[in-house]
């Protein structure tokens, strides 16, 4: 900046002009890109409110003449969506709660304790992240058949209550909490478990929030496993229910778009509310690699 102030008048103009064009292109590219990213959502909303004759127009019409709010009601009642929603909420919430407990316990052991076979166990845990889940799909399915768990909540919840990713993330966070605090507390006669509950967890709220948010969203959006594990509509979750809904309504896209909208609404709302935690959480996971 200091250098530009010393420029003579005619060069100053050129500098300002090039600065202005650069800024202009910067904004133009970013805004155009953002509009492309948003367009499918807007199109979904717009289509979900259109009347049948507006769906089959051969030109782009963003705003429906009169918003057909009843499309949502018709779509909701055309399939057992309230059951799907209840299942999705229940499974996501229970998975999230159990996972955060199990992961905190394991992460605490890895972060603060010295024990036999620690490194071997840690590598073994991390190793599972390199294995594609599809490899385990078939044996896990056979296990579920043997347990008689097909079409039960057990199959949809229990295998997903531990995530090595969460353990790793929490361990990193726990390790950043000064070790002297831990030793001082132990000398004062505070038990290890009490220390975890009263000191460690309250200090790790951001990491816990990230872990829980990821789990909730992952569970809500899970597809292949639920598709394989469920046969009856009463056990389906939203994504699986939605794929069956397609074969029911066929090409009536206004209803399909209404269903897509309410299928993604809870997660979008959750994301908009907790945006900051979310983006910080991802940035945190990316930094370490």
């Amino acid at each position, binding site marked *: 900046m200091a250098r530009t102030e010393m420029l003579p008048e005619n060069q100053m103009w050129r500098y300002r002009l090039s600065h202005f064009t650069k800024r202009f292109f910067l904004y133009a590219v970013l805004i155009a890109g953002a509009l492309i990213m948003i367009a499918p959502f807007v199109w979904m909303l717009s289509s979900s409110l259109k009347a049948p004759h507006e769906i089959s127009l051969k030109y782009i019409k963003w705003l429906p003449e009169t918003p057909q709010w009843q499309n949502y009601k018709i779509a909701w009642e055309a399939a057992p969506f309230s059951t799907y929603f209840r299942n999705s909420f229940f499974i996501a919430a229970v998975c999230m709660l159990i996972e955060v407990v199990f992961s905190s316990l394991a992460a605490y052991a890895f972060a603060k304790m010295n*024990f036999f076979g620690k490194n071997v166990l840690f590598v073994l845990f991390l190793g599972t992240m390199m294995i594609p889940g599809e490899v385990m799909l078939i044996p*896990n399915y056979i296990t579920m058949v043997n347990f008689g768990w097909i079409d039960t909540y057990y199959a949809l919840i229990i295998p997903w209550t531990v995530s090595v990713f969460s353990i790793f993330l929490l361990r990193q966070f726990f390790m950043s909490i000064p070790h002297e605090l831990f030793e001082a507390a132990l000398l004062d006669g505070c038990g290890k478990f009490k220390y975890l509950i009263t000191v460690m967890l309250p200090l790790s709220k951001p990491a816990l929030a990230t872990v829980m948010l990821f789990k909730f969203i992952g569970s809500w959006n899970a597809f292949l496993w639920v598709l394989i594990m469920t046969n009856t509509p009463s056990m389906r979750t939203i994504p699986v229910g939605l794929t069956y809904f397609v074969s029911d309504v066929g090409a009536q896209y206004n209803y399909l778009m209404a269903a897509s909208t309410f299928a993604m609404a809870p997660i979008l709302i959750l994301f908009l509310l907790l945006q900051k935690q979310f983006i910080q959480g991802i940035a945190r996971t990316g930094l370490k690699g």
Partner: protein
Amino acid sequence: MLRIPAEMKRKKYWKETLEAYLYLLPAFAILGMFSFYPVIKSIIISFYDWHLLRKEQYFVGLENYQRLLNDKNFLMAISNTFRYVVGFVPISICLALIIAVLLNNKIKGRGVLRLAYFLPWVTSSVAISMVWRWIYNQHYGLLNMALASIAGFVNKVVELVTLGGVAQVWEFSNINWLMEPRWTIINIVIISVWKSIGYYVVIFLAGLQNVPSELYEAAEVDGASRWQSFWKITLPLISPTTFFISIIAIIGAFKLFTEIYVLYTGNPGPLSSGLTIVYYVYRNAFERYRMGYASAAAYILFAIIFVFTLIQMYASRRRVHYDF
């Protein structure tokens, strides 16, 4: 006298070991049951002619693998998957890097823009593939209608510029995106680039913020252009981030399934042009109950992903700058 503390230390160590195992027990039990055991079990199943609805299973050794490598459909699944990976990974990483570098400037409304790019990532693949199915519709889809208006605009401009000399440079007729096999992989690449780019942008932004700004200032003083400092400073210093992103992108891309399944409503696309390795595993295991055969296919997928991870690790040892 000297022995007692050592003894006590050992006792304390084993006591702590026992305690730690208690903390690890729930996670270990679940992982053991649903991760460690299935990885071993899967390779055993892959050596069997294993049919789900049959009581007895027959050991066949490597026959499943041999048959797979001669199976035209499986080879097609591998080639489709590779074409998708080759399309998706570089495009998404390059676009994400460009957007992240642009967003890393001092601009107004940065939060809103970042939000817009990130939004697709949180939505369910099923719901969003449904929306894209509608966008790709041949007659009433947004994409064809948008392309038609762009073509009309281009034609008009050319007509004006040439004073009516050239009337139609771009004759656009609606593309049948979902019915023509040649578009299948491209369709999926478009959807997944759109869906995952925001995630990579956020990670890139975190990496970019770790580059010390003094370096750019020093480069500017030395008369380096923005372009030069991007190639000489930004790119080398964010290479750990690029490395991390390319690994997760490649691994994720090899597991393509949901988008295909939803976009083509339970089919692998016209003429199986969207048959991927995971789709192949799904079809053999859960539509035909050939568990042994499908397990072998899944293990080949695992091997491919593993090779890529190793290549990346090796390459990163030479090129990635982990410290500065």
